[in-house]
């Protein structure tokens, strides 16, 4: 790096505000749509696993293993099918990561319904499925929101690695900055990604308060 180069050149940031906003928007879509799809898949799968506990053990092992696979390698393995620079190369694996994280959370949440509540529902004539959907699912919301926070934040930071396969949104700033030995875009990228993660995290905390007001006092439950 040149000696006279400052760590952050504010003028570059001021000149590229529109560009940065565009990348941030692209990043948010690329990282969060998979989390949403993951949630939509995790809830029915979680209900199925909670209804048939024998199914859960193997499913949990598979998804725990999937979750621990390095995102870089998975992106690379998909490149021949989905192409370099395509959003799908990044979004498909991110969906699986989100699902791998949310499925166990859903099942744990469903199982954490107090026994008294479960028995009360049964006594009122609720069948297995109706009790799961109408009683156990709502009471698992605090757990789900906890899982969603982790999934959303890690999805946002993982999406940046997509820059290595040509589609990283804010992650592109790292490649750009490195190739030009220019630290400003790299720092801007790190700050924007962390800020996006924080924003989504705060939004999810607020959503949890709205959706599950009873759980606010027992914050520890979903941690």
């Amino acid at each position, binding site marked *: 790096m040149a000696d006279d180069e400052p760590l952050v050149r504010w003028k570059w940031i001021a000149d590229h505000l529109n560009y940065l906003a565009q990348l941030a928007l692209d990043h948010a879509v690329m990282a969060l749509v998979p989390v949403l799809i993951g949630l939509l898949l995790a809830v029915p799968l979680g209900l199925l696993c909670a209804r048939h506990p024998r199914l859960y053990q193997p499913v949990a092992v598979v998804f725990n293993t999937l979750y621990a696979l390095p995102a870089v*390698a998975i992106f690379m393995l998909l490149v021949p099918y989905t192409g370099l620079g395509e959003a799908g190369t990044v979004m498909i694996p991110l969906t699986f990561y989100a699902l791998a994280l949310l499925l166990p959370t859903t099942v744990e949440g469903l199982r954490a319904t107090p026994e008294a509540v479960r028995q009360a529902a049964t006594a009122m004539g609720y069948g297995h499925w109706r009790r799961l959907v109408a009683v156990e699912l709502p009471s698992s919301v605090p757990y789900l929101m906890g899982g969603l926070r982790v999934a959303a*934040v890690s999805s946002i930071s993982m999406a940046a*690695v997509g820059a*290595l396969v040509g589609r990283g949104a804010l992650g592109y700033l790292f490649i750009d900055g*490195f190739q030009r030995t220019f*630290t400003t875009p790299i720092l801007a990228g790190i700050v924007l990604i962390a800020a996006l993660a924080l924003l989504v995290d705060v939004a999810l905390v607020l959503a949890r308060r709205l959706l599950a007001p009873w759980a606010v006092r027992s914050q520890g439950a979903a941690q």
Partner: protein
Amino acid sequence: MNWIDWLHTFFTSPARQSGPDSIVHRLAEHFAFTGEALLYAGLLSVPLGLVLGYTGRGSALVTLLAGTARALPTLGLVTLVVLLAGIGRSAVLIPLVVLAVPPLLVAAVEGVRGTDPDLRDAARGIGLTHPQVLFQVCLPAALPALLAGLRSATVQVIATATVAAYVGLGGLGRYVMDGLALRDFPAVAGGAVLVVALALLTQLLFAGLLRYALPPGIRPRRSVD
């Protein structure tokens, strides 16, 4: 566009059999970085985590640190550190250590804090000093948590070391990055498969460790209540 052909081309190419770009050499490099980063991260975080967990101080700080670490983009950290510190082995080790510290620290803190308070009281009651309680009671009880933290840290470092090949680090990531630059898909596929295999083996190893390497008294077991 055929996986079997690609993997065959990759694994049978003479450059992969011997020399600096051979699979054995790249794998050894990957192990060396991972081991070194985990060693430094462990030396930094485990003693600190044990003390913080035992005294119950700074838990808010540890939670915050863990959350921030999850939001940090690895590629950004790697490129920034290398631009600031220059390309070199020790520079690339910094982000690897930085990313391995939070899971280990959290595991140490949570492990010690999760020790049954009655057990701690009993240990104090029979006259053990605080350091004795920490090392003879809390540390063994924290072992499963520590191992789980070490597993997360290892998986994280293996993945980050792959990403760090982008800025010139050796290891299995070299195949992937060089392959992409040269449009050599057999190398990309072979490298990615090797990284996935390494991550899977790590998982298996830790599953085995958690199951068999612990003294019977602290093995995870079904609740007896």
